[in-house]
């Protein structure tokens, strides 16, 4: 067992020992879980990332509303300890099935669905201050990479220039002990929101022509993708460009890449890329590129509400961003990346992106 595993095990055991001690003292067993909510995150102006605040929520066992979560926390804790002891790593879905069983003679289960167990894992991460990897857990893979880089994944050399049409699947754990960067000619990283756009750009060999690394996260990029982008930016000093839809959700994806998320604020340090650049789609692109009116989508009430909410975020405070968001809200329409195809199937590869990059038409 390596040092990290020993340390993580110690943290888990201490948490349990505390509970036993509290019970022995006749007190209501409690664990303090750092609050993962907007109220307990701060935007660090200097580092320009979202950080977790000091607020903690007491999770009491003898409290109807909290007892189940309390029990689940230790169920997951015990399972992780076992994984570490056996030197195995498993997916969080696996862990869900590993810990799911029926309670006594009731119809209740320890977990009803994975949506219930995932936040418990996150709670445990912040409570014992251990990363998911350190708990020997990973999420299912999502996101692919192609481009001018050669890397080593668990000892296998991966040439990202020769990944066919699908690209290399970015694993959930991309720490230095798993992934090493070997060689690269890339000048920047382009993170796109969607798989479809990734395929178009890959087919058009955009990355070859512009010497970059192309990554997609399948919507909101998973931890693995974010962590990898962070490492590429940090270790290889590559600028990061983000291409998302022109709607509140797209903007939010960008903001998560840039300064981290509220939910995983405790990992912002390792994941956020504060200098990531927003390449598009901008609210002004429709005019600039002469897109037809019929490619727009009407904003829903939800979109509007979210848009207004975003105006209040400190990281969207700068004037250009305000213009972007206000413009979007005013027009009442949103625009998908695919809308660019109305100008020609490879319009995005041949005209849109080159023009944007050439003219430095991005936001930071």
């Amino acid at each position, binding site marked *: 067992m390596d040092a990290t595993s020993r340390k993580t095990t110690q943290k888990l055991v201490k948490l*349990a*020992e505390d509970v036993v001690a509290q019970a022995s003292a006749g007190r209501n067993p409690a664990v303090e879980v750092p609050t993962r909510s907007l109220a307990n995150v701060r935007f660090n102006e200097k580092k320009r990332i979202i950080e977790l605040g000091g607020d903690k929520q007491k999770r009491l*066992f003898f409290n109807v509303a909290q*007892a189940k979560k309390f029990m689940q926390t230790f*169920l997951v804790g015990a399972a992780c300890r076992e994984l570490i002891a056996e030197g195995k790593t498993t997916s969080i879905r696996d862990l869900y099935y590993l810990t799911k069983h029926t*309670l006594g003679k009731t119809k209740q289960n320890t977990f009803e669905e994975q949506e219930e167990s995932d936040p418990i894992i996150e709670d445990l991460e912040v409570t014992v201050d251990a990363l998911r990897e350190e708990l020997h857990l990973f999420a299912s893979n999502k996101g692919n990479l192609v481009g001018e880089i050669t890397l080593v994944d668990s000892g296998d050399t991966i040439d990202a220039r020769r990944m066919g049409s699908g690209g290399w699947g970015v694993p959930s754990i991309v720490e230095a002990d798993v992934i090493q960067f070997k060689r690269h000619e890339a000048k920047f990283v382009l993170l796109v929101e969607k798989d479809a756009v990734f395929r178009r750009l890959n087919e058009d060999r955009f990355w070859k022509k512009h010497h970059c690394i192309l990554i997609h996260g399948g*919507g909101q990029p998973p931890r693995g993708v974010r962590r990898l982008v962070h490492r590429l930016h940090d270790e290889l000093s590559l600028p990061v460009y983000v291409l998302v839809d022109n709607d509140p959700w797209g903007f939010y994806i960008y903001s998560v890449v840039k300064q981290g998320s509220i939910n995983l604020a405790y990992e912002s340090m390792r994941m956020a890329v504060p200098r990531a650049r927003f390449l598009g789609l901008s609210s002004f692109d429709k005019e600039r590129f002469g897109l037809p009116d019929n490619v727009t989508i009407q904003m829903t009430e939800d979109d509007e509400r979210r848009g207004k909410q975003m105006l209040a975020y400190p990281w969207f405070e700068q004037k250009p961003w305000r213009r972007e968001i206000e413009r979007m809200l005013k027009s009442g329409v949103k625009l998908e990346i695919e809308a660019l195809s109305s100008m020609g199937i490879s319009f995005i590869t041949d005209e849109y992106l080159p023009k944007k990059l050439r003219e430095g038409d991005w936001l930071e």
Partner: protein
Amino acid sequence: MSTPHMIAPRTPRGREQAAPADRQLDLLPLPSKEEEAAAAPPSAPPAAAEPALAPAMAVPDGSAAAPPKRRATAEQMAQKQREISISEFFTKNRHLLGFDNPSKALLTAVKEAVDNSLDACEEAGILPEVRVEIGELPGGRYRVAVEDNGPGIVKAQIPKVFGKLLYGSKFHRLKQSRGQQGIGISAAVMYGQLTTGKAAVVVSKTGRGRPAHHFEIQLDTRKNAPVVLRDEEIPLEKDHGTRVEIELVADWLHGQRSLTRYLEQTALANPHAAFTYLRPGAEAIVFPRASSEPPKEAVEIKPHPHGVELGALMLMLSESKARGLGAFLCQEFSRVSSRLADEICDRAQLPRTRRPSSLDRAQAEALHRAIGETRIMAPPLSCLSPIGDELVRKGLINFLSVTEADAPDPEAGGGAEEPGRGRGGAEAAEERAPDEPPDPEVARIKGQTFFIATVTRPPRVYRGNPFQVEVGLAHGGNWPADRPIELYRFANRVPLLFQRSACGMTDAIVKTDWRNYLLSQPKGALPVGPMVLLVHIASVWVPFTSESKEAVAHYPEIIKEIQLAAQECGRKLAAHIRRRQHADYEAKRRSIFELYIRELAHSLHGLTGRPEDRIEKKLLALAKGFTGGEEDGRPERVENEEGEEPPARAPSPPEDEAE
């Protein structure tokens, strides 16, 4: 008229005085409501009456064209006119006495006999032991026998008590008793005689060492007089008591349920009495005595002046042996002092020395009016004998222990429905936490839990008659929770089984808003829930709507008292239901914790290596302390997980980076 009154008999009397004028006005061709309400001046009625009479006289003249042939002369008709005996009247109108049909006859016969037994025992200060036997005979006939341990009846009185209508001791006095007119038992004898031709058998013994008399009695309906067929002395083991046997045609199949009901409820309202009920084709039912405390003796009182009507007053005046009016008032009425008698005489402008029998109608009316205008203290309340809170409670417990869980109210119809829907009794019992503070109002009966509440209101007065209301309820058990409650009505400890919807007591309960007390209640109906509600009115003169004594009249004073009592009971019930809900909640909490404790102990064992059972024990011990209600069961801070989340792309849930 504006004199303030201590009690409120003014309204009904005022109405009576106005009545003659109203009636005359009714004769007017087109009387409008407004005119009636305007209460014409005293001089108006005679003048107004004349035109009304004139057209009536004119009718024969108008149709004189073909005068009808006279069929009989007044003299001829006179030959046919003769006195109708009271017995003959009731033979024809037996429904007035509760003998409308064969299924009800059985009940009425038993009821009359049992009421008499209980009254006699109460008056003699004996704890009643009543035995009711129903024997099946061929041809749809039944023998009803009721036997008590009462004081017995002296030989000379037996024939009259059982063989003469309107003969009794209870009519001429103001005292709370079950029977009132002296019709009941002789009517039962008469009904038996009518339907079977058989004489009633009465055996009575008045004390140790005395002979028991065995009578066979019939009733001469023409003369309303008893006919004794047989009279002999027989040996009898018990010291005293009376047994009456009547053979009658009855419908056992349909009558048995209400009979059982009657006995159950009689036992309920008379917890000092023991009943044995022998019946054909089923097991005997025994209602043991729930209390050996005899009811408080009801004292006989004189009428209260405000309760007497003009006719009754005139009768009293003519029969009085008092020398002067002042003495008459003091002697014949309660609450009249000589000073007050003077005040009344002055107001009536009659000398107090005037002989009562010498007053004419106008003077009597003046006296009556003067009485009405005088403030008089409320009547003495010693004449009442309520069951009492504690005994209502004991009666209810006894009732719940003995009753057969069967049919709803006989009037409600519907077949016998076994309880068991709603909450299961056993489950309800198990839910109770061992450390829950004992609830004094909760009784465990036959493995089921009932909440019992009782309220006895202070005595009140309507039209000069004292009365007192009691309400008791039992809630819970395994009674169906989705059916109307059972309402048991009692008047002077006698259950009222019929005419439920015509009864003022039902009205009072229906008009009480039970939703305030956590029961559901459809509009204008009884509340719904697993509950028996007992309403008892005790009074020297219960205002029944008819002689069969099945429903109480809607006197506002009575309805108000019943509602106040019901509300008080309801508040207790609501408090119990809330406690119960809280206890259920606590039990639920505990079971949740117990479920999780095993899991938690296992996990903690896995993490720390400490023995699992020790951890589990510690946590279980803690659980008891934490489910007593100290913890408020709320999270100290609500997690704000949905406050600020990425915009969800409906319909897929937000993925974020959780995976």
